């Protein structure tokens, strides 16, 4: 190596390290500052999510006599009533989610096609039920649907039916009441995602020879799937843990998971068994979410990353 190039190397090397330590220290200081700003939030997450779930899990591992055992989990396999409750819960969740999609998709589509002003007025009607308590709305449905309720009285007065329809205190009542409460959770994310579909994409579809129906099928519907998926997941997960409406509208015949937990803890004071129910519900929900993400993820990521 010649002297000239050596000194050149030296010069460029020195250029490269000017203030390097100070800049590194500055970067570290910034990360520490950021972490300090983040820490209240992290603490809250730890205190109200991580700790209670850990505690729940811990509780579920002890039987009534305080001995460490798997008895609470064994019950899921050998007690028929547990299995029945489990099946009922999923039956209700699937039916309600299905009903929400059937009612909510056309509604969200209509909202997305309305002029902005009209859409925001209609949205108020979608959100309005949120401002009333679930309890009040459920009792209202009970009044409307019971044996001598509005619907049955009208239908009988009109001579459509001779016997009152069994609309309350059974599976149908639970589904009607829960669908009403869950609908906005499906419509709002779906509407938001439909609003982001480029109108020019639909125009392009028609321009390229697709009829309006074909344009909807091949372009609008696939592009609305991510929104539908998020609405679907929210509704389904909320259904799995729902308590008030099935407790009131089911008439004691429709026992869902959350009701079982309530019975176990308040009636039998068996905290271990109740905690095990909670852990299983959480695990099943997470597994379903994971499955859903995996199923839709590959198809939807392209659309999501596009935005």
């Amino acid at each position, binding site marked *: 190596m010649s002297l000239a190039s050596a000194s050149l190397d030296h010069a460029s090397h020195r250029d490269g390290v000017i203030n390097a330590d100070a800049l590194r220290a500055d970067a570290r200081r910034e990360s520490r500052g950021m972490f300090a700003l983040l820490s209240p939030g992290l603490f809250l997450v730890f205190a109200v999510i991580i700790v209670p779930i850990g505690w729940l899990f811990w509780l579920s591992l002890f039987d009534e006599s305080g001995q460490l055992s798997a008895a609470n989990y064994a019950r899921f396999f050998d007690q028929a009533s547990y299995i029945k409750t489990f099946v009922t819960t999923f039956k209700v969740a699937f039916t309600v989610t299905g009903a929400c999609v059937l009612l909510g998709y056309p509604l969200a589509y209509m909202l997305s096609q309305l002029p902005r002003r009209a859409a925001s007025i209609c949205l108020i009607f979608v959100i309005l039920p949120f401002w009333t308590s679930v309890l009040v709305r459920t009792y209202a449905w009970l009044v409307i649907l019971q044996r001598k309720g509005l619907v049955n009285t009208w239908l009988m007065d009109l001579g459509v039916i001779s016997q009152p329809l069994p609309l309350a205190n059974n599976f149908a009542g639970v589904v009607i009441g829960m669908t009403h409460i869950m609908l906005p959770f499906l419509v709002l994310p779906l509407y938001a995602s439909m609003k982001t579909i*480029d109108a*020019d*994409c639909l*125009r*392009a*579809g*028609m*321009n*390229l*020879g*697709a*009829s*309006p129906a*074909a*344009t909807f099928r*091949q*372009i609008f519907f*696939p*592009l609305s799937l991510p929104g539908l998926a998020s609405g679907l997941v929210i509704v389904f997960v909320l259904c799995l843990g729902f308590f008030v409406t099935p407790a009131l509208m089911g008439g004691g015949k429709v026992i869902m998971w959350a009701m079982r937990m309530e019975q176990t803890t308040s009636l039998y004071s068996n905290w271990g068994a109740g905690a095990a129910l909670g852990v299983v519900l959480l695990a099943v929900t997470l597994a379903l979410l994971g499955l859903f993400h995996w199923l839709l993820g590959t*198809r939807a990521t*392209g*659309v999501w*990353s*596009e935005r």
Partner: protein
Amino acid sequence: MLLSLAQSALPIGISGIEKRFGAVSILSDLSLDVAAGEFLTLLGPSGSGKTTLLMILAGFVRANAGSIKVGGEEIITMPPHKRNIGMVFQNYALFPHMNVFHNIAFPLKQRRVPAAETAERVERALDLVQLKGLGERRVDQLSGGQRQRVALARAIVFEPRIVLMDEPLSALDKSLREHMQIELRNLHRRLGMTTVYVTHDQREAITMSDRIAVMNAGRIEQIDQPEVLYARPRTKFVAGFIGESNFVPVESRNGSVWYEDRKLRMNDAAPSSGRHLMVVRPEKLRLVADADETGGVNLLPATVGDVIYQGDSFVCYATLKDGRQVTLRDYCRPDVLAKLPAPGEPITLGIDAQDVVLVADQ
């Protein structure tokens, strides 16, 4: 054989188009003929109605009145999916849930073209827009220029008789835009499809078009070839919108035209009596050294305001005797540079008789 649009290119006859949104008139009694295989540009500022006209042609907007004939067939009430018109959208409107191949195959799929032929035609279209081998790419993996090409391929793969383009290059950066202008023009020359192109960029319009229709407030101000439009604008709006213009007020009386007390030498006949504006392009003005020079030159005494050197050319801002500012532009030749005037210096500007263009003073 590449795509064979030339044989099927059709003329468009647009007549009496009216479009109102409520009380606001967007297009009024607009008529326009596009020849088969012609590249016609609708040029105008935003709000001039050019995009609305394109939307009416594509069938996305319903006119209040008028007729659109493609090859003699009336299409004004035909739904968009039956019109067989290709369109390139401003934001490309590619389908984000389909890859490049399926985007381009979309119009063929609607027409129930067999799979083997579809694959072959998509391949040819990709080749035509220089995207060979990118069929499997997702749309969000493409650059702006590549998306533009996919949109173009999709609009021509089904061999439409007419192609519409709505400011297709406006989202690209300057150098890519200029490159695509040339490419689009060459593609049009090869395929010969009747093309209606919308832009607000006058340079783009001049570069690409066979003819340009300059639109303003829902009307066509002038429709001509680019060079005619530039050299002989018929209205003040056209003169101002295409290229730079200085307007010098003149008066026509007794069969001749006067600028203050000087009679203008001009090749055209004098217009009707009254006030008019002389359109003076900065590059048509020149510095006249000898004020006694006569012949076919009009002389305008002025005072130099500022001289700006721009490398290949220079710009001289001067004030006429009536206080009006005019701009002169010339190339930086050594002889001119040697005699550049200084600010504040009195000069004489010359404009040749053949370059005198008058428009009505609105």
